[in-house]
């Protein structure tokens, strides 16, 4: 298969499909067993320094923030992160020195809230390396290839651009159409964390609203940590099996953490905490500010429940619930 162009990006998280099948065979259990544990246990057991990690949800939506804070609390380091519209999660991890390599689809920005002071500072000073570029669909299809146990998925994006040139894709001639086609390599993150609306103790998960990339990400991640707003009985899963978006046999850990996506949004449950985002965006303009933030919200609390108290506790949560229901107006305190 003649390669016309080959991307310069580092081929991170790729494995020969046979090698990955071997991993699945020996490490992913097909037995129904109780996987509940604490975030602290899950991160200690499943996140290793140097790992390639990926976060579920999208941008500031349905992100397993409780795992992100725990990774920082445990001082994990030399992590490479999938920048698949990774924003606040990535910004905290880069700012705190946990992640020093990123493959970027969309990173170092907070959408309409502006760019990330912390992430940009780390990249522009060389402390965090961008090891490759891709696009959102590019990442999506890296996960699709992984879920399918394939070496690659063809695509018609990324072609002709520097994004493609700095990616880990290869361009070949399609033997059916005779036209050039892009081949996107599979990604098998060492560990992924996905926050869901509800799941049982085995890890059968239901997600409300859009799935984003989580259907595929859940199935390609080598280790998968699920955090959930609530744990439900297996009988509820079995009553409506068509609502199961993630089956237990791809899940390694289940952590019950209400409001576990804060300060990010949770579809139908609670809105972005824009005050908290503004505080981070303001503090993170300096390394000292990042330290202040982390001392207050990560190292200064023993777990995510205490963090939630520090963020305003029940009163704040009640406000965010009302905001999600559009019963109170939007606030945008990060505006200058």
């Amino acid at each position, binding site marked *: 298969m003649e390669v016309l162009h080959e991307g310069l990006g580092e081929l991170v998280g790729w494995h020969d499909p046979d090698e990955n099948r071997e991993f699945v065979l020996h490490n992913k259990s097909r037995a129904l067993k109780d996987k509940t544990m604490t975030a602290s246990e899950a991160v200690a057991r499943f996140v290793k320094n140097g790992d390639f990690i990926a976060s579920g949800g999208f941008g500031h939506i349905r992100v397993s923030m409780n795992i992100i804070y725990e990774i920082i609390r445990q001082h994990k380091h030399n992590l490479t992160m999938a920048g698949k519209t990774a924003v606040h999660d990535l910004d905290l991890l880069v700012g705190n020195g946990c992640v020093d390599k990123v493959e970027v689809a969309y990173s170092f920005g907070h959408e309409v809230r502006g760019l990330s002071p912390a992430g940009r500072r780390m990249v522009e000073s060389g402390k965090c390396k961008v090891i490759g*570029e891709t*696009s959102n669909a590019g990442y*999506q*299809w890296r996960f699709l290839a992984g879920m399918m146990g394939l070496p690659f998925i063809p695509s018609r994006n*990324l072609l002709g651009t520097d994004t493609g040139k700095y990616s880990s894709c290869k361009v070949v001639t399609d033997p059916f159409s005779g036209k050039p086609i892009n081949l996107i390599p599979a990604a098998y993150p060492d560990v992924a964390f996905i926050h869901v609306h509800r799941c049982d103790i085995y890890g059968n998960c239901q997600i409300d609203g*859009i799935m984003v990339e989580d259907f595929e990400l859940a199935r390609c991640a080598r280790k998968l940590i699920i955090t959930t707003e609530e744990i439900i009985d297996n009988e509820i899963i079995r009553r409506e099996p068509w609502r199961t978006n993630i089956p237990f046999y791809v899940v390694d850990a289940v952590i019950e953490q209400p409001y576990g996506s804060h300060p990010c949004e949770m579809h139908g449950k609670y809105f972005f905490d824009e005050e908290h985002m503004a505080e981070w965006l303001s503090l993170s303009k300096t390394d000292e500010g990042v330290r202040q933030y982390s001392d207050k919200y990560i190292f200064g609390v023993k777990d995510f429940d205490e963090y939630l108290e520090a963020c305003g506790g029940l009163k704040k949560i009640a406000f965010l619930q009302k905001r999600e229901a559009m019963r109170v107006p939007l606030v945008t305190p990060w505006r200058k």
Partner: protein
Amino acid sequence: MANNQTARYNMREFLAYTGSNLLEDGKSVFVGTGLPMIAGMLAQKTHAPNLLIIFEAGGVGPILPELPISVGQALTCYRGIAATSMHDVMSSCQAGFIDYGFLGGAQVDKYGNINTTCIGDHDLPKARLPGSGGANDIASFAHKTIIIVGGQSKRTFVNKVDFLTTPGYLSGPGAREKAGLPSKTGPYRVITQLAVYGFDEKTSGMKLISLHPGVTIEEVRDNSSFDILIPNKYAVSLEPTDRDLEILRKDIDPTGMLIGK
């Protein structure tokens, strides 16, 4: 934009309005964060009630009750016709179901190539920007791509983008097809604070379509590093009605988050 108009509307309101005008009822548009979203909402609330708005994270066909902050939040499928996945909507886009892709750009060249990745060297950039996001995908797949560049200047209309994040006509006529991109796609319009541009069929170079009221050809030329084709015939861009402005200010962005106050 003409100073004598600033009393009635600001530049971002004008950009959103101009964008909305390009969208047709009964067609589909893939919108990015920010002004493209506002333009889509305004079109839906005025001349294009059945504009099918699609968001890259999986929200399809919502009836938007307020302006989303993100292309992934719950609102993007609020009273939608489907709440699905990135794989689904990106696949539909690749398969040709999307009429308009609507993007913002930091740097653009005369072929409509966009940079949103970095200023300076890639590996140690002067300024790191967010990267492609869904932009490379949308501009590769949509039948027509519309680009909003809020501040046209010699710094944003450049001879060569520092990093070619998102494909315009690449190096010129035929280059997209040669690279393997879907045929008959590419940038359709570029909207700035000064004018609306299209692309010349022969050269694929940027050309003037309409000047905003009160803007001169000289201003257009002075605010670009590359030569913009000025045809003999060009129009003056339409202005928003008071009703359009009221919808923008009261219904779409009451906090002024994106259009300012």
